[in-house]
């Protein structure tokens, strides 16, 4: 083997690959060159014209309609569900894990997995047409615990947000460090709707999490940020039922908003049981505020519970898994006869376990509302 081979072989391989890549690019530009299509939303309520070829989620957001999505279009959150009225082909394997039998029958699809290749008709909740993109500045960053920060965003334009307590926004952060793209994630607002100049978010550091790492390590006060919202159907139902609220970690946010909103509106008729689960005392926050609220609002009962208190915590409250504490209260303290509704916010594992406990204690799944964040 002579020295020439070392030059010839890589040259041939690169030339060949280059030629093939050129063909692929050529075919791609010919084949994936779609004309404009119309998107008809909610039976003619809104009509858009957009160039085909990209996903429905991206196309809609470029036209100012923001479908909620926590993963940003990777089919890993299942949030961007829309009802498609026209034919867009069969359900993709990537969508299957997120659709129930009923949703499949109704032709509910994930907007991020549908490529715009035809004129399309779809239905989305009317609220989503009002979702806006907000420019804001970071007003303050507060450490609530060692791994949860409260960030308060001051709205610039539009300068106020109309939302229901418990709803969430999608925070969008710029590319940073090794991350080449914008990242967006969903966070519930913890402030009440009366404070419509701000969006207050609780963000727990997730090891390896793109957005949470940014917020915890890079975000500065006065920095400009962008978010879209409000989204979600996790808000107070207008009934007289007794409320069971269960949260853990940053799941505090929507529940806090709902309860303070009730306090501001002098809605004292419904009794509220708020179970907040944490590992040890260093994971607890807003303890004093909620104790104070308990005093001001007789219908409100706050039950923090530690699953694994440190001896140094000198913890006098409930000890054990939040689901066990809930079960105990439902069996002994809370009257079984009154109608009940449950509002849950936490990790999928916590929600699933809590729903089981509630079901066992006679609270039907239709009466359980939750925000699952993974």
């Amino acid at each position, binding site marked *: 083997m002579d020295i020439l*081979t070392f030059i*010839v*072989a890589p040259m*041939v*391989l690169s030339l*060949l*690959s280059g030629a*093939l*890549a050129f*063909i*692929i690019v050529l*075919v*791609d530009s010919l*084949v*994936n060159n779609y004309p404009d299509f119309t998107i008809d939303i909610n039976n003619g309520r809104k009509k858009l014209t957009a160039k085909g070829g990209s996903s429905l989620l991206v196309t809609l957001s470029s036209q100012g309609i923001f479908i909620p999505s926590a993963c940003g279009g990777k089919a890993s959150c299942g949030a961007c569900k829309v009802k498609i009225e026209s034919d867009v*082909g*069969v359900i*993709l*394997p990537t969508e299957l894990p997120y659709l129930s039998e009923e949703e499949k029958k109704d032709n509910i699809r994930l907007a991020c997995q549908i490529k715009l*290749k035809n004129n399309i008709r779809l239905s989305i909740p009317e609220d989503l047409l009002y979702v806006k993109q907000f420019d804001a500045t970071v007003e303050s960053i507060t450490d609530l615990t060692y791994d949860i920060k409260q960030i308060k965003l001051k709205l610039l334009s539009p300068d106020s947000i109309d939302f229901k307590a418990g709803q969430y926004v999608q925070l969008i952060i710029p590319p940073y460090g090794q991350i080449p793209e914008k990242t967006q994630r969903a966070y519930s607002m913890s402030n009440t709707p009366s404070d419509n100049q701000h969006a207050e978010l609780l963000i727990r550091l997730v090891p390896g999490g793109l957005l949470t790492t940014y917020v915890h390590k890079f975000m500065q006060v006065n920095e400009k940020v962008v978010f879209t919202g409000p989204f979600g159907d996790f808000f107070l139902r207008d009934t007289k039922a007794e409320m069971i609220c269960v949260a853990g970690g940053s799941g505090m946010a929507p529940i806090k908003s709902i309860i303070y909103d009730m306090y501001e509106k002098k809605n004292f008729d419904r009794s509220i049981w708020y179970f907040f689960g944490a590992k040890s005392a260093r994971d607890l926050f807003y303890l004093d505020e909620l104790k104070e609220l308990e005093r001001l609002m007789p219908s409100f009962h706050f039950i923090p519970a530690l699953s694994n208190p440190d001896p140094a915590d000198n913890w006098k409250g409930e000890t054990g898994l939040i689901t066990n504490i809930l079960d105990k209260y439902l069996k002994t303290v809370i009257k079984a006869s009154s109608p009940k509704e449950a509002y849950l916010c936490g990790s999928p594992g916590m929600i699933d376990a809590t729903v089981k406990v509630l079901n066992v204690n006679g609270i039907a799944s239709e009466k359980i509302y939750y925000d699952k964040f993974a």
Partner: protein
Amino acid sequence: MRPDVTPLILFIASIFTSNILLSNFLGMCSFISVSKDFKSSNGLGLAVTLTLTITTALNWLVYKYVILPLKLEYLTYIVFIIVIAAVVQVLEMLIERISSSLYMALGIFLPLITVNCAIFGVALFMQLRNYDFIQSVFFGAGSGLGWWLAIVTLAAIRKKVDVAPIPSALKGPGITLITIGFMAMAFIGFSGMISVQ
């Protein structure tokens, strides 16, 4: 030194008597998993046939006019795979545009054609047996059709098997493998008639 087989005979032989799937047992993974469903089997068969025909022709040209003159035989495998991957990419884009229902039905198996051993196998056989261009094209197309025939046949049989009273332990992959065995025997039974290897 090319073997003395007329392309037409080679074509027929690679469909029936030396079926790439049932005599060489190449391309089994998608054969077993996709044959659950008749429609996708048909689609995949078509896609494999197209890919095989095109890649065999392209690979022959690349081998004859690039690899041999430059004495780069040791790069054969890599070059063949690059060519196959590119062709599958192009094919994928075309299928997505032309028939989205077929694209959906094939799902992950479409890009996986890239690593379908049948396609690579045919390219290597073509080079090993010194076929000329016409022979290679017929060999590629025939092998593709043979693969297509085998997968739709298996899909049809599996449809019947689904409703047959099979011992529960054999249900699923067990009975499928046995079925494939019988099919192989049936196909190889004719191998005395035409010999091309």
